[in-house]
């Protein structure tokens, strides 16, 4: 471990961390935005869900590197390629949680909302989705953590992330750089995880913890 390497490369480290955060958080957010309408549809019309789940299971089985490569002809060696691929993976972990969260809303609650004169849309937005928030965010957490960690693989096709520190460290046989990369990826994932937990507490003040 060569501590002096860190301050002298501060701007590089900061830039890579920022890139990696972007490549991790954006796909999870896009995945969440796509999952919500799909999840609502799947929770309402049950026949829609089993075939969707099969497609998702197969998509999730595609190696990240393979998916990056499959997208190269269309999007080149760019951030877009990595973001689209990681969005697909995030979708795969978030959608099942959206469906599970919506289905777990007690029937008595939805009936009470209907009896109070709530229309289907208002009931969905003000009653069902808020109650499903903990389960949806549990999926979102996994999506963010996985995307941040997988973004480093994007470095193999030349898309800049903390993975640069791994590969550069290997080529120069310089473990310090690899340590810094590993610690920062894990720290970034845990920091994002903590933020999501804080958001969940703010959104669900009725929950015990």
């Amino acid at each position, binding site marked *: 471990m060569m501590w002096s390497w860190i301050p002298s490369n501060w701007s590089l480290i900061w830039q890579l961390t920022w890139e990696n955060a972007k490549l991790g958080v954006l796909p999870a957010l896009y995945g969440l935005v796509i999952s919500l309408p799909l999840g609502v549809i799947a929770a309402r019309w049950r026949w829609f869900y089993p075939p969707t789940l099969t497609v998702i299971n197969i998509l999730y089985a595609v190696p990240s590197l*393979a998916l990056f*490569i499959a997208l190269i002809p269309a999007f080149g060696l760019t951030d877009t390629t990595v973001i689209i691929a990681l969005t697909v993976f995030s979708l795969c972990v978030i959608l099942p949680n959206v469906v599970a969260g919506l289905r777990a809303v007690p029937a008595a609650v939805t009936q009470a909302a209907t009896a109070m004169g709530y229309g289907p849309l208002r009931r969905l937005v003000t009653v069902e989705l808020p109650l499903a928030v903990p389960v949806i965010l549990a999926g979102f957490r996994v999506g963010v953590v996985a995307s941040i960690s997988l973004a*480093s693989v994007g470095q193999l096709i030349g898309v800049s992330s903390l993975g640069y520190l791994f*590969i550069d*460290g290997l080529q120069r046989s310089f473990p310090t750089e690899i340590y810094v990369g590993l610690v920062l*990826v894990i720290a970034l994932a845990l920091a994002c*995880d903590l933020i999501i937990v804080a958001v969940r507490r703010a959104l669900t003040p009725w929950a015990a913890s």
Partner: protein
Amino acid sequence: MSFFSWAWDWVTTDANWHGSGSIPQQLVAYLGYCALPLLIAALIGVPAGVAIGHRGGKRAVVVINTANAWRAIPTLGLLILLAVFLGFSPLTWLLPLVVLAVPPILVNAYEGVAAVDPSVKDAARGMGMTPWQQVTRVEIPNALPLILVGLRTAAIFVVATATIAAYIGLGGLGRFIIDGLASDQYGPVAGGALLVVILAVLVLALFAGLSRLVIPAGLRKQAKTE
């Protein structure tokens, strides 16, 4: 789609199926790279998850949260770190893949056992089963669907990730991808990627078949009526 035409041309080229470093050879090597870490991870994850689920309590939550945070460890980074320190020791590729595979196996085994209906557990105790019998005859069979989901997820992770072992010079299907990328040949890159995807889908099918075989009939019926 150009990806599939590239992949198809490469996979159907006869020369790629013969000689050293051919498709069959790398495929066999790849299966080895996947099977061994999975086996080790299952031997760690299933007993640990079952034990934690059986005992329950607040400590279980801590262990499960740790296992989830564990997923933040980037496999590529760990692989490269070990490559720098250990060189070409088997541990170099084995350890990162085991680290990758343990959390889904452990968490699902835990959730499966923890979610067994308490009245079923009580009934087992009431019938005079020893704790060992309760675990092996009641809790594990009831948790099997989720244990299998965990093993399937881990298998998919490992099959999808073992390609990066080629980055530190090992064989397997990743060889085609990494070498192709290095020499700007898109054919082997797409072909190697396609073979990994096919392998992953086969793993999914294998587990679908396996779950039919090993999940007790009574549980399957219950799952259907739910």
